[in-house]
């Protein structure tokens, strides 16, 4: 059954703050084979003008996608979660995520479409730091595959 268009534009309450740790950034950078010292060495980060080590560009997904679970599991929306695959992902960085950031995410449903029986859900996650500065905007497209189509 197609999702209710009335949910387009709906925002969910901001998440509790996620504190970005230096060792978490290091662990993530190593897991993607990234050895740029700007992720692990504070002095190297400072030399590039950052106050502390910065996270690789896709690091923030763990935070934004965790926030998107509020949308995915909203019983009123009724998305068939077992059939969901990740369609598209985009990050717009207003500045790099860095160690010490305390980030909250506000998720908004940007679009709902139905295509060949698939439900397609576009979620925007606005990631703010403690001062209220917008750090990253994460755009996530989820596709709930039709029972026949796959």
């Amino acid at each position: 059954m197609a999702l209710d268009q009335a949910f387009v534009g709906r925002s969910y309450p901001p998440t509790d703050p996620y504190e970005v740790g230096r060792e978490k950034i290091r662990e993530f950078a190593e897991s993607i084979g990234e050895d740029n010292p700007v992720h692990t060495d504070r002095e190297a980060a400072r030399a590039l003008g950052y106050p502390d080590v910065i996270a690789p560009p896709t690091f923030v997904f763990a935070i934004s996608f965790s926030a998107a679970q509020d949308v995915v599991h909203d019983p009123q929306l009724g998305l068939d979660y077992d059939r969901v695959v990740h369609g598209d992902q985009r990050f717009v960085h207003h500045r790099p995520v860095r160690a010490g950031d305390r980030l909250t995410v506000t998720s908004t449903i940007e679009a709902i479409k139905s295509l060949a029986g698939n439900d397609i859900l576009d979620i925007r996650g606005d990631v703010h730091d403690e001062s209220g500065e917008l750090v990253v905007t994460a755009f996530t497209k989820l596709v709930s595959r039709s029972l026949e189509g796959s």
Partner: protein
Amino acid sequence: MTAHTPMTAKVAYADVEKGTELPPRSFPLTRGALVRYAGASGDFNPIHWNEDFARKVGLEDVIAHGMLTMASAARVVTDWAGDPGALIDYGVRFTRPVVVPNDEQGALIEVSAKVAAKLDDEARTVRVDLTATSKGQKVLGRAQAVVRLA
């Protein structure tokens, strides 16, 4: 110019033109790499480490995290730019799963990229289009990055 505007990319805007190719790279992804990424990212979906489960949901075998493919491809751009913080906009479509066999080689993701457009002479931003393949087939679609150069 804000305090967050990176000036630190090692590639100068003036030195690139439409069509400039970035150094291509290959990224081997073994099962071990997937387990490591699962831990670092918090994505423990068993399709990324349990072949019985993967087959039960209709996959050929264990597949790589789409976000790991996305993160690997980004390294072609961030290694070129020198400063990962210079990547200000990055988006991909997950078009085909990367199957990772349980052997020493795993899967290989081959990534090439080139400057598709010079966007803004003042902001020194360029759009880079990426191509990521595994076994000769595209695994990412519409993979584009906006990079702020020096």
